């Protein structure tokens, strides 16, 4: 009982880190979903010039050192970067050294995992079912909404959970791009890192580590439950 008390007895900064991490991961997951589905569709079904280039670009964050991705983000979306300056001037959106920047970094780092899961499920869809829906009068958009989308739902769920988990754990690109500001950009991994850099930070680091594990496990269980429920609807066997 006492140990549990110790675990939940977080300082305000630690609470901030937990809340921020969940918020960053959720926002990263939600905002990368529509482009993720679109690009997965393009990669699974599209026939166009430069498809392998697009495929490479999507997978780049997976292979590059996270610091490189973070630095590229800083160059592009930083205040003086081309995209950053444009967004700041016309839409008032600032990424650098803000939690939104952390979400952007996490989203981009997790994007390949999301696209990959969805793409695999799209490739597994029986296209003959889509043709059948067409003969019943459904336009391509309706076919996608009523046949393809429900059939790839397990893949989408998996992709979203993977994306969330990756975003929760992202460190390198985030700290490079938006630094490690408590209350603004200090996510769980950055907070743990900070604790490991100061004397006597062991207890805090361990607390946050355990919390990370709990959140990750919860996400995993949630995805299993969801996938099973969706799977049962599609295939009761």
């Amino acid at each position, binding site marked *: 009982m006492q140990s549990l008390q110790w675990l939940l007895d977080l300082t305000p900064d630690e609470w901030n880190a937990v809340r921020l991490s969940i918020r960053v991961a959720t926002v990263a997951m939600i905002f990368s979903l529509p482009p993720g589905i679109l690009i997965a569709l393009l990669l699974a079904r599209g026939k166009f010039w430069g498809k392998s280039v697009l495929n490479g670009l999507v997978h780049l964050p997976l292979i590059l050192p996270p610091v490189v991705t973070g630095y590229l983000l800083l160059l592009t979306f930083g205040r003086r970067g081309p995209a950053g300056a444009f967004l700041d001037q016309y839409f008032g959106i600032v990424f650098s050294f803000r939690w939104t920047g952390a979400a952007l970094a996490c989203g981009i780092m997790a994007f390949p995992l999301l696209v990959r899961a969805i793409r695999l499920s799209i490739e597994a869809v029986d296209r003959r079912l889509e043709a059948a*829906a*067409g003969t*019943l009068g459904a336009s391509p958009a309706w076919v996608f909404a009523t046949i393809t989308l429900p059939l790839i739902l397990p893949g989408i769920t998996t992709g979203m959970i993977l994306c969330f988990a990756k975003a929760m754990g992202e460190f390198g690109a985030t700290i490079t791009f938006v630094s490690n500001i408590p209350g603004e950009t200090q996510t769980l991994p950055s907070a743990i890192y900070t604790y490991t850099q100061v004397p006597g930070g062991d207890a805090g680091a361990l607390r946050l580590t355990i919390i990370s594990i709990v959140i990750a496990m919860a996400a995993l269980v949630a995805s299993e439950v969801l996938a099973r429920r969706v799977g049962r609807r599609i*295939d009761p066997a």
Partner: protein
Amino acid sequence: MSLSIDIRHRLGAFTLDAAFETSGRLTALFGPSGSGKTTLVNLIGGLLRPDAGRIAAEGRVLVDTATSAFVPKHKRRIGYVFQDARLFPHLTVAQNLHYGRFFAPPSERHGDLDGVVDLLGIGHLLDRRPNALSGGEKQRVAMGRALLASPRLILMDEPLASLDDRRKAEIMPYIERLRDETKVPIVYVSHSVAEVARLATEMVVLDAGRVVASGPTAKILQRLDLLPEEEQGESGAILDMRVASRDPAFGMATLASALGEIQVAGLDAEVGSHVRLRIRARDVLVATERPRGLSALNILPGTVLAVGAGDGPFADVQIDCNGQTVTARITRQSSHLLGLAPGLAVFAVVKSVTFDRTNTARAATSRAATNTDGVG
């Protein structure tokens, strides 16, 4: 309803070059596998775009490469019953049935769920998922789904091919009902003479991507030489006959038509109803004198119209019996020994037991009777 086709389409080394017109209630596209039947229905349904040519249904041009006209499949309003049913696995049977209805313009919707469910006997399946259905049930649901989309034409691509003989026999009556009780014309792909003889009013024979023959089923099936060799034994005369009387004591029924009377064993049809009878050519004996002391009950007097000539071991003899043609497949040797030649008076002999469930079926109701308002 009329369907007019004149197309050329290449698929790898295979070339389909087909032209025909049909206005039958159920038109069979008949031919061996690889003859282009499925390619042809895919072109009609809009699943494929022809290299060149024109397809029109009911005077509506579906595709015409000369004018670059192409109606996409979801706007063709042509139902398609696939060989593998293709029910949507994430929807229940009821949701599958409703699927196409949603997309049909309200003014063009015909048939209602209850009627279709009743017609196909699928009422007890509505809450199930497709995976919990047998092959035969899946095909019936697929037919219902296609029908409820209120199509102007239904394509069926060998809907019985993946079923065993018992299931086939179970489903055929439903296809007969579909043919006779709805106004939607059907194009039915098959490689089985038994199915075509039972179901089709018209047929188009395809071989290696070309139309070999087309016309009324009864006429085409008499021409055994048009059919693939392995199916020739199944072919023969197709006759629509009336049940004249029944003899429960012996379990026999007497059928009447211009041909004369034919005794059939164990027929399950009411007196006065019409049945379609297939007299397989290989079941017919030919005698030059009226045989006596013979167990066969059907001895039909007639005149030889033609004797099929060829080098093979068989001779197909066309016999005119009171204006109806009966085909007999005998050996060339027998034909030679009997001296069969056109004009010779002969007797066609058929055993009653050769008529079983596979070659007696309900007759296709005439178009005039079911289709008085001229729709369809």
